[in-house]
């Protein structure tokens, strides 16, 4: 297998294939950086074109876009508090406060370096460990995946914000939105009111654009025109000067890469969950958790490492088992099928050059990210922020419409997005936290579906949820994460009482 890996390298280094990666990464960064446009949308728009392209050119474009967009999403998340992609929500927690402190440039540099590291780690995992990691995927049946989802849902506790009641309202709202559509088991319509457009549920991008992009746009328009106000004192310095300030991040990079890779090989969860989880874990491990959420660079590093670390690893189950780990991987799988590359164990045997070439492309894409996404891209986007606010707002409105419309080519989604926008505006102003809504939407129905599948497998016996070691380990982890901090606080309180 490793000789196949080397054998495929010369092909990848061909001019057309290299150009495809470079163009892909740049396009990905731009798409990710545009509020409203997402990686899923970019790749779905691209797929019909790949019919006419050489397989490696097509795949190189996709790999580049995927990697680029996962970083690109950080740019508006940091500068405008509008996550460019669902996976960049966690990036905004600390990135935006950093930008407000005049550290936006550094935040973006942390983001690009971390994205690149996560991407490289993920590509290496895909190249070297795909077969053994696909065995890990097989360990996770519905019961185990249910516990993973529960673990993820528990991290909502850390996202509740100042008022836990409001945080829970947000979470319940997100979970409720997740059940709209056809029932995952029975196929019965739930809250679709006869609308076929709602049968597949509410696409995360629609919710995200509505909740996260519309309120800031309204704010951009609402604030009286003050062009004199310098919105973008970015504070950029060359990347080699910024690097020494990141030396303390290596533990976070390592941990977040592992979390991202792990979430990637579990089908269905995706980059947003990886970013949320890795952010929480990094904060728990931090010596100064109180600085988190107020502009802690390590928070940006954690989120951005993880959302790139899940890109290539999501292809492990996709290539070996035919189950995509993320929405983007699902679209890519389609791109592979178009070229007659059918996922499964035979794929590595029958088409080694293309498959291993694809893996190299992920690696190169991740490495290129530092160079292409570095100061140049960052600065040009930052300059956009110096545009007069009303103008910026009116352009973002157009991008939002395009981004949402292009997912399924229908206006229904645009109206739905506007509805969420109205809700999001009120929530934002009344200080209901938005992250629990996103996490609830991603994990709510996902947990439900797997629970009900597990119960069917167990023929109604709840014992099936605790029937094997993997499940028990996950339960123990969840309990530790939830109860641990409480116990710690209690102990600390006792200690201060005693002294």
């Amino acid at each position, binding site marked *: 297998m490793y000789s196949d890996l080397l054998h495929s390298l010369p092909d990848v280094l061909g001019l057309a294939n290299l150009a495809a990666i470079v163009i892909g990464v740049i396009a990905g960064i731009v798409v990710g950086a545009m509020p409203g446009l997402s990686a899923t949308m970019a790749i779905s728009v691209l797929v019909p074109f790949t019919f006419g392209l050489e397989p490696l050119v097509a795949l190189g474009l996709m790999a580049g876009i995927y990697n680029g967009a996962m970083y690109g999403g950080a740019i508006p998340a940091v500068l405008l508090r509008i996550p460019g992609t669902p996976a960049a929500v966690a990036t905004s927690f600390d990135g935006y406060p950093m930008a407000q402190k005049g550290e936006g440039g550094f935040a973006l540099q942390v983001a690009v370096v971390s994205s690149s590291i996560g991407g490289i780690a993920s590509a290496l995992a895909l190249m070297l460990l795909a077969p053994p990691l696909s065995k890990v995927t097989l360990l996770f049946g519905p019961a185990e995946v249910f516990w993973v989802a529960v673990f993820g849902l528990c991290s909502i506790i850390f996202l509740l914000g100042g008022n836990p009641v409001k945080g829970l309202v947000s979470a319940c709202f997100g979970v409720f939105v997740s059940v709209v559509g056809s029932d995952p088991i029975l196929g019965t319509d739930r809250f679709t009111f006869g609308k*076929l457009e709602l049968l597949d549920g509410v696409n995360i991008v629609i919710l995200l654009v509505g909740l996260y992009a519309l309120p800031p746009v309204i704010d951009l328009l609402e604030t009286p025109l003050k062009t004199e106000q310098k919105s973008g004192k970015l504070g950029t310095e060359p990347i080699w000067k910024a690097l020494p300030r990141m030396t303390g991040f290596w533990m976070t990079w390592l941990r977040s890469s592992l979390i991202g890779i792990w979430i990637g090989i579990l089908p269905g969860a995706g980059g947003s969950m990886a970013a949320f989880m890795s952010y929480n874990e990094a904060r728990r491990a931090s010596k100064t958790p109180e600085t988190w959420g107020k502009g802690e660079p390590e928070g940006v590093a954690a989120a951005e490492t993880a959302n790139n670390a899940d890109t290539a690893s999501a292809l492990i189950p996709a290539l070996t088992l035919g*189950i995509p780990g993320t929405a983007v991987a699902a679209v890519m799988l*389609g791109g592979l099928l*178009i070229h007659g590359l*059918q996922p499964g164990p035979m794929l590595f045997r029958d088409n080694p050059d293309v498959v291993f070439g694809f893996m190299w492309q992920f690696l190169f894409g991740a490495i290129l990210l530092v160079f292409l996404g570095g100061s140049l891209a960052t600065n040009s986007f930052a300059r956009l922020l110096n545009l007069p606010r009303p103008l910026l707002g009116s352009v973002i409105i157009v991008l939002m419409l395009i981004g949402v419309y292009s997912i399924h080519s229908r206006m229904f989604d645009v109206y739905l997005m506007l509805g969420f926008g109205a809700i999001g505006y009120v929530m934002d102003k009344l200080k209901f936290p938005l992250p629990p809504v996103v996490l609830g939407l991603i994990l709510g129905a996902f947990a439900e579906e797997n629970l009900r599948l597990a119960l*069917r497998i167990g023929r109604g016996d709840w014992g099936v949820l605790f029937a094997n070691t993997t499940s028990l380990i996950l339960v123990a982890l969840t309990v530790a994460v939830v109860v641990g901090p409480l116990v710690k606080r209690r102990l600390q309180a006792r200690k201060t009482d005693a002294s």
Partner: protein
Amino acid sequence: MYSTLRNVTLAGALMGAGMAAAQDYPQEPIEVIVGFSAGGGTDVMARTVAPFLEKYLGDGASLVVKNVPGASGQIGVTETAHADPDGYTIGTYNLPGMMARTLDREADYDADSFTYLANVVNDPNVIVTSKRSGLDTLDKLLEAAAEEPGAVTVGMSSLGGDDHFMLTKLQNMTGSEYTIVPFRGSAPARTALLGGHVAMGILNISEVASFQDQINIIGVATDERSGFAPDVPTFKEQGLELVNGALRGFVAPAGLPDDVRGELLAAFDALKDDEEFLAAMTATANPVDVVTGDDFQALNAEILQTATQVWEETPWQ
């Protein structure tokens, strides 16, 4: 460039509706509505068929695929049903799904809404078991099911699809009972089978052909062995009259002019013997079985009848 072309098409379609004569058809690009996203199985079929259809329609015919995804293809097929029957809009059509949806859901179309052009793909069902279950023959499987009704868990892609009808046929034929575990699509079902989380699975042959070493394929529900896995015996060979599968083809709105229909049917008929076409379809995991015109309509009626029967006896919702 394409978009201007499209605009011209739209304008042209408006003016020229109903005027198409056989020798002139097709004068404009033909829109193919695919009810799934680009890159899905049905989409790949449509895009693979398109150039061959263009070839046999001649006169510089061109087919433009338009993806109208959502609701398991129902949104797209509804759009096809309500399009102008002028031959410039055709759509992909999946069986038994499209007919089953007229039973378990409000649908704005029925079996009479279409002009049946051709079925192109027939992906037969297979029964597979996980290596861990130890049920490596049909006899062992039936025995285990008979021993304790419901003890065997069956992973499949959804309720009300071809997998489900296949299982119902099996249950009726053998008087056995299974526990259905409907996953979201066949890939997760197959993965659960590979991991041994369910004992048995009902899938389609194209979905398991490359996993033959990892799971036991008990049999294939066809009259003759499938080219995709020639080593797998049919159920007929094993004494069970089980024939079932997922069908993918093309329809046009009802009321297509006869001459246009004739042109299209002739083009589809020509696919049957095109070696290059057959190779392209095999490469994209599409077992070909071209059935055109009235035969396709009869096939549709037959499947609708089966679905209605299952729905009345054991409604799945």
